């Protein structure tokens, strides 16, 4: 879930990652023929956020499944033995953490008076979980104090902007219109939330057995990485002596005006005083305190003007001295930092060429890669028993596995969430392709072919483009891609220049030139796919959401080789985007100068300026509530296409923010409408309707 919050630091997209990458998978009712249908998506389950007990014998985790009645994803806390035994449901909720003595867990679940609240469950005594907070704003990011007596958490403290005016009182019983909404903040809206009130996220402590909570930090600054405080995961930690908390934040100035800077602070839990530990100006995040309390591992970068900058791994002493870069040669971005229980090493994950792998760093051994191959691992948690993590592959939606860091290839699988579903469907193979593009770039991509692929036949092709643009398509099981392939398409996806996971230079190849070389890579991918001999060249389609909407709308303004397009949640016009999006700084960083000084590259990089070339029938799909690439962007393109008489339709998704598939029914609709549109323009015209 962290992807959606990485927006300032990295991707514009967020939602794309949610849509296309980390999803669990599939199964359907026994009545169908083994194709992976949209209905199978509803049966997929997923595991996340595993936490191993201090003694290494048990793992709690958050399981996600579709609630078919409520049209939502539902989360529950489950527990399983490190031997895979006694796998059971604990409670509806998420984010469970172990007490230091391993006898209790704290987690978040719907409570009174509203929304998520903190609950504690004592595993050694019978009885239900106990609600211990009753706050009006949702608590988040729980940690037990080292002595097990308190739970620390973060929570928004609202301080709404006020503008009292002397409006005469309405007569009793009158129905007057509600007051205007006003703001003087730069960041006053957020995708996934809507319009936001001014507020700051602060650190709180509550006794583990309940009672009044205490606000530790105060003032007009937030614990966390950015101004996007309403929904976010915040990395913070108690120091082992229990006297302080290591947090991230920005209290050096007006956070509303802060673009990328973020610092690590040590907060005195008695006084609330925050001492800055990272002295260099820049973005420093994800602090992890070693169990012996001596060292803080973290990631970050010095302040810079780049569109994107990989964070690097650093360590410093607990007092902030001795900051040392530990990943100088690594050229990948460390995430999910976890200390070994003996403080000898830091484990982390990093994107690498379509996979996400587990790595370790130690003072003696430097950085070592622990997992290998075409797979994705997430959410590592370490304790005496080893490392538990989530692992997924092209045809495996993913389960929790336990590995020994010394023998990382021998893993023990703890869950079997989708085995029955996988038994009833035939999945498509995911074939890697590699090819050269312009400027000597070497590009990686994948083709997902229909499960009954016949090499003597030709198939319609969908080029699906990821967003970000600073993001990475990976090899993890992708239900959308499997569903397209099951409906008879070859699904082509690649990581064009600008993608992460291939090094800083590759990612920044689109700096001040987006779209640019990424277009060449996409076309080279299509040429490569055609060369394999099974693509029906007169029925090729292009699609993408967010950054993928930018590029798919760009593609049809630069070539007529596609029979139809499905442009989802796009940016069409960068100048208007800059004023409409919830991420203005991120948008300005794509360009050399503000548009009032020089609009030329803002215009030259906008798909709208090429709409005069478009002949491709285009379906536009965007969420009504989107605050990232708001619907006026879609409307601009739609009006231009209509004006030019290009066949086009606009689908406005009810209740969706950025992306069109957060609600399960809308996920299915996204797939079906796209394939219905492609069928209208010649894909498998006499075949069965998409399913």
């Amino acid at each position, binding site marked *: 879930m962290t992807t959606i919050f990485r927006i300032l630091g990295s991707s514009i997209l967020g939602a794309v990652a949610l849509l296309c990458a980390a999803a669990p998978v599939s199964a359907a009712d026994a009545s169908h023929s083994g194709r992976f249908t949209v209905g199978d998506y509803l049966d997929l389950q997923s595991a996340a956020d595993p936490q191993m007990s201090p003694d290494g014998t048990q793992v709690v985790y958050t399981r996600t499944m579709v609630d078919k009645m409520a049209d939502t994803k539902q989360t529950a806390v489950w527990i399983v033995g490190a031997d895979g035994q006694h796998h059971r449901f604990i409670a509806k909720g998420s984010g469970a953490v172990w007490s230091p003595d391993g006898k209790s867990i704290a987690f978040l679940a719907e409570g009174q008076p509203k929304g998520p609240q903190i609950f504690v469950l004592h595993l050694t005594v019978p009885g239900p979980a106990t609600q211990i907070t009753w706050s009006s704003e949702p608590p988040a990011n729980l940690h037990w104090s080292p002595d097990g007596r308190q739970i620390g958490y973060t929570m928004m403290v609202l301080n709404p902007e006020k503008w009292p005016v002397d409006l005469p009182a309405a007569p009793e019983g009158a129905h007057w219109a509600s007051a*205007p909404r006003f703001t003087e903040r730069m960041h006053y809206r957020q995708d996934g939330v809507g319009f936001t009130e001014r507020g700051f996220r602060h650190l709180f402590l509550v006794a583990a057995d309940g009672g009044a909570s205490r606000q530790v930090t105060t003032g007009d600054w937030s614990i966390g990485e950015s101004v996007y405080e309403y929904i976010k995961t915040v990395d913070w930690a108690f120091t082992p002596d229990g006297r302080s908390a290591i947090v991230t934040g920005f209290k050096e100035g007006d956070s509303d005006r802060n673009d990328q800077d973020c610092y690590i602070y040590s907060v005195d839990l008695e006084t609330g005083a925050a001492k800055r530990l990272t002295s260099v100006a820049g973005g420093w995040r994800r602090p992890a305190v070693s169990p012996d309390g001596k060292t803080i591992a973290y990631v970050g970068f010095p302040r810079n003007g780049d569109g994107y900058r990989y964070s690097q791994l650093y360590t410093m002493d607990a007092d902030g001295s001795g900051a040392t870069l530990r990943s100088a040669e690594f050229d990948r971005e460390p995430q999910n930092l976890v200390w070994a229980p003996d403080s000898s090493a830091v484990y982390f994950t990093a994107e690498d060429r379509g996979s996400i792998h587990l790595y370790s760093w130690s003072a003696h051994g430097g950085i070592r890669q622990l997992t290998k191959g075409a797979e994705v691992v997430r959410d590592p948690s370490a304790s005496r028993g080893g490392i538990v993590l989530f692992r997924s592959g092209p045809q495996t939606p993913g389960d929790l596995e336990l590995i020994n860091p010394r023998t990382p290839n021998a893993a023990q699988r703890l869950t079997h969430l989708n085995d029955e579903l996988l038994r009833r469907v035939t999945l498509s193979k995911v074939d890697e392709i590699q090819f050269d593009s312009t400027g000597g770039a070497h590009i990686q991509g994948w083709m997902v072919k229909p499960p009954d692929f016949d090499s003597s036949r030709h198939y319609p092709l969908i080029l699906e483009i990821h967003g970000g643009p600073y993001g990475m398509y990976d090899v993890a099981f992708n239900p959308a891609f499997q569903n397209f392939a099951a409906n008879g398409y070859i699904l082509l996806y690649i990581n064009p220049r600008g993608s992460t996971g291939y090094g800083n230079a590759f990612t920044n190849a689109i700096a001040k030139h987006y779209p640019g070389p990424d277009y060449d890579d996409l076309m080279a991918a299509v040429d490569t796919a055609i060369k394999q001999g099974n693509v029906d060249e007169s029925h090729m389609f292009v699609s993408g959401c967010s950054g993928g909407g930018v590029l798919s709308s760009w593609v049809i303004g630069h070539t007529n080789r596609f029979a139809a397009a499905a442009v989802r949640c796009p940016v069409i*016009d960068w*100048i208007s985007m800059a004023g409409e999006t919830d991420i203005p700084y991120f948008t300005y960083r794509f360009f050399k100068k503000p548009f009032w000084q020089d609009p030329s590259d803002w215009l030259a990089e906008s798909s709208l300026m090429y709409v005069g070339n478009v002949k491709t029938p285009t379906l536009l799909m965007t969420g009504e509530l989107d605050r990232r690439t708001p619907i006026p962007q879609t409307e601009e393109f739609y009006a231009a296409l209509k004006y030019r008489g290009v066949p086009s339709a*606009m689908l406005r998704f009810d209740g969706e923010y950025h992306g069109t598939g957060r609600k399960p029914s*809308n996920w299915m609709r996204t797939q079906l409408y796209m394939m219905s549109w492609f069928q209208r323009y010649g894909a498998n015209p006499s075949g069965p309707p998409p399913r």
Partner: protein
Amino acid sequence: MRRLISIALFALISAGAHAATHVLEPQDVFHMRWAADPQIRKDGAMIAYARTANDIMKDRLSRSIWLIDTATGAQTPLATGPGDYSSPRWSPDGSRIAYLATGPDGRTQIAIHWLRGETASITNLTEAPSDITWSPDGRQIAFVMLAPEPGPAIGKPLVKPAGAHWGGAPTVIDSMNFRADGQGLEKPGFKHIYVLSMDGGGAPRQLTSGPFSDAGPLAWSPDGRSVYFAGNRNPDWKREPQDWARHTAMTLSIYRLNVADGTLLQLSHDVGPYHAPTVSPDGKLVAFLGYHDKHIGNQNVRLNVMNADGSNLRVIGESLDRSLHDCQWAADGHSLYVQYDDQGITKVGRMGLNGHLEPVASDLALIAAATQLPYSGGEFTVSGKGTVAYSGGTADDLPEVYLVRDGKAQRLTDLNSEFLKEVTLGKLSALPVKSSVDGRSIGAWELLPPNFDPAKKYPLILEIHGGPYASYGPVFAADYELYAAAGYIVVYGNPRGSTSYGEEFANLIYNNYPSHDYDDLMSIVDAAIQKGGVDTDNLFVTGSSGGGVLTAWTVGKTHRFKAAVVQRPVINWTSWLLTSDMSVFGARYWFKQLPWEDQATYWQHSPLALVGNVTTPTMVVVGLSDLRTTVGEAEQYYQALQLRHVPTELYEIPGEPHPLMRPSHLAVQTTAILEWFGRYRTAAGH
């Protein structure tokens, strides 16, 4: 037809106060009353009109229908109480009045009132009727109403488990013009003509059909066999620019409908917005409004006359360089009464078929929404005896019913006498202005604060009208009175681009807006300063819609203003053109090419291009349901000002379309604007 835009681009208000020592206060918006839609009976003995007020309980405009005896001036209520009553229309024999009644359920029905006392609602419609028109024998009423259709569909609906609560299905849109300000997404369907029998009662009969929208006003032939209307039955009409007042295509032709069998005959064939047909008393001639469309910024709406079969079509009165807004036959069948704006002042004249124009009435006035700005406008009707009823106003009074008899105008209503007695208003006078650009005369007015002291200096607010093809005139404006009551001199006027000064003057901004209209506005401010009483350290500027465009343009051009409030602006012509409900219109009539063909023109006239120069503290105001100048425009400006660290504030008003509809919102918006100016206003002489 230009007026569509102007109506579209603004909004209305009203105000009031107590004790003559008292100045106007924001809550006075709930105390004001005004007259609209005066309908004089054929014999001239009675006038029905809509008495209008801001309902303090519902926070909405509410109308009731009253009758005036023109001999005595006595008034009696016809339809009042909870609900909204409008569009009174006399039956040909004068014994009945049909009107529209909107009940608490929000549905609008046609009701009939018999002067002998009874009232009955005679329909049970699910869509709102409009343009109700009696047949000559008084036995039928024709009207226009939406015939709903299923919306576009793509793909198959999903089957969900019984009892599940799934998210709603996506909205599918496949038409060019798919929304309308004040309405939202257009309801799928087409407007058609219906007829209702007064004798048999029962359900109305639909007379026209097909995938085309037909437009009122309607006109019956004297023999009752035909109804004339305007429509566009060209298969490609959906991609035509829209007429926002009627939600039909801009290109309209006059049709004759055979009431018995529904057959249609197209009578006019020229390309242009031809509309408002009216039949001569003898049934031989049809007069209508419109012009040959040259697809430029502004054209005069002309009077056209043809034989009832469409032959011998000619334009009447071409030497009058003004746009006509209404035409009604005189009883003699040799002339028509027409309404037009002349240098900001709305007038009624009688135009002979030879083109000769004779003045009849002047100083008409109209309030169309919650905001009260001094836009030109008015309404009139003429009796069979040639007496003319109209809504008229002055600098000191809201619209009232006036009657012209024997060449003399007389006010028949006095709806605000008690209220205005307690209020000291500002003093309005014409302000002579020569443009610094080319020495042209620019129409302008200055409102001095109540109890103005010539020995003192006052801060000044320049308020700019929208449109841009519209005009202001010397009439009461509650918004301005509230500014004046707070101690400001308010100046306003008609820079180039404004209507009512001739086609050439209006088109000076065609494909060139904003441009020298800005200089004209500065000339207005300079003239006010020269006249005296202005504290030149405390100049402020605001405007809505087109006035928002020019306000944002102004702060990008000069630093002479202390603070600004940009209301409902276009900030970026490219994004506006492609997100507004006037998308196709803007592309066809305001620019010569499309944004991707001639981006330079779009960008060079966008206030956003000048935001790098702005240092003036600027508040940005927009209604959250505005589909004319969409919220994204205001957001773009706000965000850029924020990035540049210019003091700014975004003020978003829930539920409001382009014109402000809620009186309470007018009151709070005015206090907010005054407070924003107050933050930056310094004491005179400092």
